[in-house]
């Protein structure tokens, strides 16, 4: 299995709300911190990647935001313009309005067009070696398969023409496991796990992209070992609680309830973790990121997740 950060194009996906953007930001921070020239790209123009780096909103033009780290957000129209100019040598026409409108229109009707312009831009950055690593905060799991399979879809829809000729090299980049990998993010909850397993199956069946890792985010700590839990159970009994109340000069019930809540919540998720583990190819690493008990969702959280990932990757 190719080491995650040795890949040059990393797509990060996951069901909404599992921390996909956090993980993408953390992987980019980690790669940059390890000396790689890294580009982080968010696909969703309404995304909030900038918040995770506490920087100004990202734009299509990539911009340095930290040492070794550049950020951009995808804009299909701008990407098309760049594509037409660079690949098809259509500099004059590339700027004209009707073409952009026509594109928008065709893209609404012909799925695959918007996606290929998106994926194409990223593959191009990799092919031209502008960066050592490109980390993509990709679409949520519902949409990522259409994006990654866009070159195949275009091949089916468009029989001839310049677009058709462009799909070959993209497929080469996407299909090379030494170059490209997909990271699926899940939390140890029922729906995210089910959706991740479904996604993994679809990625294998419908695209030629390699699954590089599954990140399990927000894993609650295990407070007690089995014997300690029995002891904790005795502590919850009225006689012990009364003594504890006296020692604290305050009711201890809320404290014990909180610990119990943590124990039961973690336990209720164990089965989903097991299911995820059982349903994932053993060759694909499962990386665990602990639940962060912090208020911040900014740079501090990004760095903490990056540290956790580094530890899991053995750095």
């Amino acid at each position, binding site marked *: 299995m190719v080491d995650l950060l040795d890949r040059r194009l990393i797509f990060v996906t996951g*069901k*909404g*709300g599992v921390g996909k953007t956090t993980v993408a930001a953390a992987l980019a921070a980690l790669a940059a911190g390890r000396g790689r020239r890294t580009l982080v790209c968010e696909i*969703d123009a*309404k995304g909030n990647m900038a918040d995770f780096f506490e920087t100004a909103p990202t734009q299509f033009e990539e911009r340095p935001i930290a040492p070794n780290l550049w950020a951009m957000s995808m804009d299909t129209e701008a990407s098309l313009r760049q594509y*037409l100019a660079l690949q*098809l040598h259509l500099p004059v026409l590339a700027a004209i309005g009707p073409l952009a*409108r*026509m594109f928008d*229109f*065709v893209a*609404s*009707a*012909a*799925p695959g067009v918007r996606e290929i312009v998106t994926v194409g831009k990223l593959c191009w950055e990799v092919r031209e070696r502008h960066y050592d690593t490109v980390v993509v905060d990709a679409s949520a799991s*519902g949409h990522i398969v*259409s994006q990654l399979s866009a070159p195949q*879809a275009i091949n*089916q*829809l*468009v*029989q*001839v*023409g*310049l*677009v*058709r000729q462009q799909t070959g090299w993209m497929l080469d980049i996407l299909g090379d496991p030494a170059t490209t990998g997909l990271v699926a993010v899940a939390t140890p*909850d*029922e*729906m995210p796990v*089910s959706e991740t397993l479904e996604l993994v199956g679809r990625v294998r069946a419908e695209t030629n992209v390699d699954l590089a890792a599954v990140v399990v985010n927000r894993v609650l700590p295990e*407070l*007690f070992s089995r014997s*300690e839990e029995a*002891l904790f159970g*005795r*502590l919850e009994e009225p006689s*012990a609680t009364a*003594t*504890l109340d006296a*020692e*604290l*000069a*305050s*009711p*201890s019930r*809320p*404290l*014990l*309830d*909180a*610990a119990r*809540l*943590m124990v*039961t*919540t973690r336990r*209720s998720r164990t089965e989903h973790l097991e299911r995820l583990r059982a349903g994932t190819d053993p060759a694909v690493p499962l990386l665990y990121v602990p639940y962060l*008990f912090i*208020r911040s*969702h900014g740079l501090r959280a990004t760095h903490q997740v990056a540290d956790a990932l580094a530890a899991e990757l053995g750095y």
Partner: protein
Amino acid sequence: MARGTRADGGVRSLDALYAAKEIVVACGSGGVGKTTTAAATAAMAAVHHGGRVLVVTVDPARRLADALGIGGFGNEARQVPPAAFAAAGVEPRGELWAAMLDARQSWDALVRRHAPDVQTQRRILENPLYQNIAGKFVQSHDYIAMERLYELHTEGRYDLIVVDTPPTRNAVDFIEAPARMAEFFSSRLLRLLIVPYRSRVVNLASRPFYQVADRILGSQFLSDIAEFFILFQTMYSGFVARARAVERLLHDKRTTFVVVSTLEAAPAHEAEFFLQVLRSKRFHVGALVLNRVLPPYLLDPDGGAAASRLVAGTTDIARRLAPLLDADEPSVERILTEVGEAYRNLRVVAKAEAAEREELAAVPDVVATAPELDADIHDLAGLLRLGMLIWN
């Protein structure tokens, strides 16, 4: 006066809201328990208000079908068997039905309805672009969900329809979908695009445009597109009229929106945005349902102080507790430290949640809060347990 209704006519519980409306649209970002909330409240309405209640979900979650005791459902609504209610120990006043949105089937049905003749119908259904749009793409689900809601409503078979919306990143996508669909088919660009293919006389003005398009995409693809649009144009008036009707229904007095969220930062911000957009577009926002909210005892000021005293004094306290617990002091000390830390950790999250709750400025009259449930919901009893927590 109905229970939960204020003297000024305002509604202050889901119970009263659901009693007053015929359509409830549950919206919110992904992963906040939207589908479960829609199903739980629909079940509560069937139990307490009677009549025929339908829950429409876009989530192909096997579990929900299992929980409802119907082992799989599709575009056709199925009744939740009374036995499932009996197993949950309740006798419902009405019936609960469930349907899942199958986008492809719904699109096909739409084409069958609006196509002028069988031949056009067949050509549309076989067009590669149509197959792509109808089958694969998330955006097309937005429209079809609203369209299906309209159809179900106008069939007149249900007293209440609770619909779970597709998970869209952009809150406004699905409410704007009918308008966008109408706009799409009345677009001038569309007409420009298909003129040469229709008349076979290339319009001079559009020639350079075609040369470029041809060079990039190839003429086969362009003619596929053109054929698709020409065929679709035959359904134009039906489609546009329909899209407008769907839009009217969403604005109807009998329709309300329920925003579902958790108090984690991202979903809460999305919920706030949802509430704003819905209000600015003059939709009726009936309620906000907050799921998986941490218990209030974590915010108790005495609790924080007690946790600090516990963590600071574990050694002394462990010495006194160890004999009582029949355990060695270091073990007890470790347990006490974990207990204190667990409280402090959860308290940080609970405080962040409380802050998010405060920041949700303009909330609807009804705000219902449910805790994190210990177990996943596997049956109707589980759905009703959640329902009970938010109903009044």
